[in-house]
């Protein structure tokens, strides 16, 4: 399967990344390449819209963990929105919901 990555920058230091497809061992390197640089600017806010992601495996999680570490290092923020139930379960089991900014008020794919 494929992953489409779309990045918009409505304001300076605010980017919105919209993902569509599967985040797995095959697509994660591409995601990492696009996502990490966005987190490297001080005070930047990166919003990742996961509404179109129907599957994520642990390699995908690893990419978000890298991004989280990078936000801490660079003083930026990352927010995940529109997560589908199946993907949310993965973040929940791994304890990542406790340390990541995840907007659960808007959930995708329900």
């Amino acid at each position, binding site marked *: 399967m494929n992953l489409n990555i779309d990045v918009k920058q409505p304001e300076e230091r605010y980017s919105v990344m919209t993902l569509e497809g599967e985040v797995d*061992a095959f697509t994660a390197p591409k995601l*990492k390449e696009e996502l990490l640089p966005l987190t490297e600017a001080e005070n930047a806010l990166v919003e990742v819209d996961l509404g179109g992601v129907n599957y994520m*495996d*642990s*390699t995908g*999680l*690893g*990419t978000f*963990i*890298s991004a*989280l*570490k*990078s936000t801490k290092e660079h003083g930026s923020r990352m927010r995940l929105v529109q997560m589908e139930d*199946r993907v949310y379960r993965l973040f929940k*089991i*791994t*304890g*990542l919901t*406790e*340390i990541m900014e995840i907007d659960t008020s808007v959930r995708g794919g329900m």
Partner: protein
Amino acid sequence: MNTLRLDLENYRDLLAEYIRTKDERALYQAEQFSKQSMQQNISPEEIINVHLRSLQELYPELPDYILDSFDFLMETMMSYGLAYQEFQALREKQLELKSEISVAANMQKTLLSTTKPEIEGLDIGALSVPAKQMNGDYHHFVIDDEGSLGVAVADVIGKGVPAALCMSMIKYAMDSFPELRMDPKYILGSLNRVVERNVDSNMFITMMYGMYNTEDNTFSYASAGHEPGFYYHKERDEFEEISAPGLVLGVSPDSMYEQYQKQVDEGDMIVLLTDGVTECRKGDDFIEQEEILEVIREYKDLPSQEIVENVYKYFERLQDFQLRDDFTLIVLKRDV
């Protein structure tokens, strides 16, 4: 006819025969000829050269422009020849790598091997099958000074060689813990510090650590973001999820883990697994938790080792015998 060699005479005769008879047998010989040429590392332009010389012998009156065109063709084929040589070299290199990986896989097997202990009153079954050569799942049994059983099930994120190397680190960290009884929450806490300091930022490990106390038949456990297991109550004939909140190992240096305890009654069963089991796909669909439980329920009265083997066979069939992820399943059953 068996000793086809790339000599002019042979090729010339074959060519002459084909031109005369248009016989398929000669074509077949040509095919054999090309296979043998490959084996002997004979380049395509050399074959063209042999073809040209055969033609010259068969038809001495060939016009110059035909001869010239062969020079042209030979030049054109040159880079094919080079590419083929390169291909051969890569193929040899690949064989070399393959054998190195299988040496590494064997080493991993030896390093990470764990013996399923025999404990009176507890029936243990364990099975771990890698999807590729190297296993990113890990399980470990240890019996402490007081006779309690420690059991760890872990999954390294990332697959293949890096995951396997990471697993060896975990194994050594666990071996270096003191022999004294340690609570699951402390074990996970110290492993987390080891992993956090030593792995790449996009790597992490999930682990469920349990301790079965054979004196009072309690099972204490803690989880670092690991796939929930199941607990089977014999009396109520019911499964429930065994889960504990906790962050995966290697993300945050000061993670704390909570520990839970269960009283295990006769005939009760603890099932620990990795997400290779729950992430199993049926075609494009994922398997539901109920289906896993149904399968376990079907075999629950067998000895533990037979339970894990039967469940594995079921999932293997479901995925057309092609595991997508490493598969690990452990069953601890208190004997009746």
